[in-house]
């Protein structure tokens, strides 16, 4: 086998599953340790640098880190990474003096940003300290785009949004023009900006063109528009009986909002099976906790109405069939159609991009699906000084993706404005440092907690359902937060092996609680060799998404092969090693942001 140590920093980065899975590659274990240490502001700033909106994301993130978390593979549930992020935001002291100072003088470059959502705000955050003059345009009357308009206040209080957008505004050089929709890209180009960033999101909610749609239009609402109207105070009530169509997170926000605006009989009715719904499992759980049933395998056929007023929705009952290729198809089950009565329908069946304001003749190319052609690495469009990011670039995703893309676009915009090649990307910064403090003493707490995941306390249901602006999740209290933080396995503290020091005494093999380590005969350096090696480890390494750590040949001709899959990073291999062949070393990886590689 190839010696693992000859592979670059990606190897160690992948071991930190949460950080690898995070689009913004936030150094998760490091900030969790800081929380455990009571250093909340330090934990916040690590997040702020990496994901810009710790307080917002700590309440709303889609948390790609948590399904990846190693803890979920060694016991039942992953570490509550997202809600620990909120802890850092909730408990931190004042951080204003830690923010980058405003640029001493403008650098003479002017950038226009279309849309004031997370992608544009991230670009602005990265570019402002370097003296760029940034102008952000938004059709709404307030900042933050979908963060403010689509996420209900009972999940995300307005004060948190204002605080975190405020940190960006405080960097200076940023002008926000609200109530200013851009209706011509050509006209915007004519204003002489050095670069334009389009972060206008996916603003159009999909409609359902079914019989009765027009006739009953007064009581049929597009989910994201309706949520936005609630957010801005234009809608304050809803009918007693509400049906929400759709199975994504927007549908969950719609039904829970309805419960707070007078909806007593609120149902979510979805085409697919419950398991296949797009909504995150915890959002479905939250909806059901608020007495909202989710009915699956029902395809809407018709909006029924009487005298121009909506009376309900008619559904065809279907079931899932799988063809030879395992693709799912919904076919009629043969059961009679079902009619559900209601006063209002909220349509949350997806959202899409819309660029009616981009002229077709200015050289900006679109693909067949009417999406702009955007480079997946540089986020540059076919017009060199126009960049895209967030939902506007590759369709609807989550805030954390918009942030990650904003960082990348900011790198490109800076390079473009400095006359550098945007295709040359700065590598991330990485360090690997021993954590040994004494004979059996490490700079991290290597004792593994046996606690199960702590539930985040909720506000009393009756009180929560009375006020659409009252935050329903209370967040961890200090004791819960510290206990949850202890569940983190410190996957960034890497087990690093030095072939030359090993005497093959087996001490590490014997002590490893997870049977990760094997000394065995070498295998050929190819896929077949790796498969063979994986099969004859002390515990066969069946998780192919997790790498093997393979040493060079040792004195007996064997190699050390470690399966990273379920390593607890407890450091016992290193404590038991008589020669220091094993060492626990902290791998810290930080992305390189705009201007930092100069």
């Amino acid at each position, binding site marked *: 086998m190839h010696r693992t140590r000859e592979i670059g920093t990606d190897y160690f980065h992948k071991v930190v599953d949460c950080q690898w899975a995070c689009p913004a590659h936030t150094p998760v274990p490091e900030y969790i340790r800081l929380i455990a240490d009571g250093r909340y502001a330090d934990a916040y700033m690590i997040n702020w640098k990496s994901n810009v909106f710790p307080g917002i994301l700590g309440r709303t993130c889609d948390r790609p880190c948590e399904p990846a978390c190693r803890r979920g593979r060694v016991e039942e549930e992953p570490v509550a990474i997202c809600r620990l992020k909120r802890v850092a935001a909730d408990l931190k002291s004042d951080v204003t003096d830690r923010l980058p100072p405003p640029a001493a003088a403008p650098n003479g470059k002017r950038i226009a940003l279309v849309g004031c959502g997370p992608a544009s705000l991230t670009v602005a955050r990265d570019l402002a300290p370097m003296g760029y003059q940034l102008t952000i345009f938004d059709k709404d009357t307030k900042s933050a785009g979908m963060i403010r308009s689509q996420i209900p206040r009972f999940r995300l209080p307005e004060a948190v949004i204002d605080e975190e957008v405020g940190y960006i505004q405080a960097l200076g050089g940023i002008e926000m023009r609200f109530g200013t929709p851009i209706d011509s890209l050509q006209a915007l180009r004519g204003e002489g900006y050095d670069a334009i960033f389009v972060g206008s999101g996916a603003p159009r909610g999909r409609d359902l063109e079914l019989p009765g749609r027009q006739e009953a239009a007064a009581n049929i609402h597009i989910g994201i528009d309706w949520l936005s109207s609630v957010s801005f105070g234009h809608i304050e009530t809803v009918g007693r009986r509400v049906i929400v169509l759709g199975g994504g997170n927007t549908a969950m926000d719609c039904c829970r909002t309805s419960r707070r605006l007078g909806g007593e009989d609120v149902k979510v009715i979805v085409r697919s099976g419950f398991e296949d719904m797009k909504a995150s499992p915890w959002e479905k759980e939250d909806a059901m906790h608020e007495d909202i049933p989710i009915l699956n395998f029902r395809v809407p056929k018709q909006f029924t109405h009487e005298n121009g007023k909506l009376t309900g929705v008619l559904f065809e009952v279907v079931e899932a069939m799988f063809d030879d290729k395992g693709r799912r198809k919904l076919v009629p089950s043969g059961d009679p159609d079902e009619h559900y009565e209601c006063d209002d329908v909220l349509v949350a069946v997806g959202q899409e991009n819309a660029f009616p304001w981009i002229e077709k003749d200015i050289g900006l190319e679109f693909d067949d699906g009417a999406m702009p052609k955007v480079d997946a690495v540089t986020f540059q469009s076919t017009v060199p000084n126009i960049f895209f990011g967030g939902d506007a670039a590759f369709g609807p995703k989550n805030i954390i993706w918009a942030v990650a893309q904003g960082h990348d676009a900011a790198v490109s915009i800076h390079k473009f404005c400095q006359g550098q090649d945007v295709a040359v990307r700065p590598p991330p910064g990485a360090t690997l440092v021993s954590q040994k403090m004494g004979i059996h003493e490490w700079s991290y707490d290597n004792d593994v907690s046996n606690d199960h995941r702590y539930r985040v306390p909720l506000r009393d249901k009756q009180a929560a359902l009375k006020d659409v602006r009252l935050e329903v999740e209370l967040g961890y209290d200090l004791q819960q937060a510290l206990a949850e933080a202890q569940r983190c396995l410190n996957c960034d503290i890497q087990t690093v092996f030095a072939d030359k020091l090993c005497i093959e005494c087996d*001490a590490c093999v014997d*002590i490893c*609680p997870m049977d990760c380590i094997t000394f065995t005969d070498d295998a050929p350096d190819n896929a077949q060799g790796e498969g063979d090696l994986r099969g004859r480890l002390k515990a066969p390494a069946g998780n192919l998404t997790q790498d093997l750590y393979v040493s060079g040949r040792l*004195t*007996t001709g064997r190699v050390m092969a470690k399966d990273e899959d379920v390593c607890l990073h407890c450091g*016992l291999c290193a404590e*038991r*090693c008589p020669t220091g062949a094993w060492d626990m070393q902290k791998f810290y990886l930080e992305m390189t942001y705009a201007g930092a590689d100069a």
Partner: protein
Amino acid sequence: MTYILKPQLHHPKLPTNSLGFTRRDYEGSVSTLCAGCGHDSISAAIIQACFELELPPHRVAKLSGIGCSSKTPDYFLGNSHGFNTVHGRMPSVLTGANLANRDLIYLGVSGDGDSASIGLGQFAHAIRRGVNMLYIVENNGVYGLTKGQFSATSDRGSKSKKGVINHDTGIDMVGLALQMGATFVARSFSGDKDQLVPLIKAGLAHKGAAFIDCISPCVQFNNHNGSTKSFDYVREHNEAVNRLDVIMPRDPIQVDYKSGESIRVQQHDGSILSLHKIAELYNPNNRAQALGYLQARQARGQIVTGLLFVDPSAGDLHDAVGTVDAPLNALNEAELVPGAAALDRINASLR
């Protein structure tokens, strides 16, 4: 030595045996020996062997004397019976326990100081009486607890960590066990679990006095150039005579080797020892040949390992003494106090 306990979490696919136990259930408390100690590897091998034999932990009694090796029973089989005796007296205590309760499985764990110096006589007599037990000497050839003096098994001419040459003849525990009549004799190496685990299984299944001399490098005081019990020296001079597979009565019998290359030996409990020959001429059923072979190889500086001698039809001390079949704690009052008629019969037989 570690400061934290071994985490309770284990591999999600860790197998269980027919009793529902995982290997981890046969562990004891965390070892306080030096990092890298060979004794810890032997403990791990004992844990693995007991797991594979599917022994109910409460049916095992582990006894030891004094020394680094004799501390180890605390680090395996945490749910078994244990007795830490005075220095060198483990064989007597084990003999007594065995006579009182013949239903338990006896595992004696000792070291070269405990068995070859202060307990040499005890060792010899427990072996020659054929006490049904597995006696493991964790042999590191050094007094580790007292900072590295030569022990009675240190080879003549080997060098201490300080550079002193040993001028005394080393005691060969295997040779001694063969001469004292042990009916199962093996030697192995803590750094070779593939060899050691089957030997422990076979030894535990053996009826009679089973003995394993396990060379176990002392990482702190006897793992240097000039030592004959270091990892490097033992690996370079190790001459295995055979490889052992233990097939329990419940296991499907597989023929691994061509005929002529392996010997099959059935033990009392039905277990089959399948011995794959490595040294062509070595015959593990002949005590006299075994002794000769060992001495010839030793003269060449080789360390012979493997199953060196086995007598599958051996009896034990209970057979020789004619003791009652039940353990003493299971005898009831009627059996213990048989009455005047029985006494009269005994008295009559002696007149």
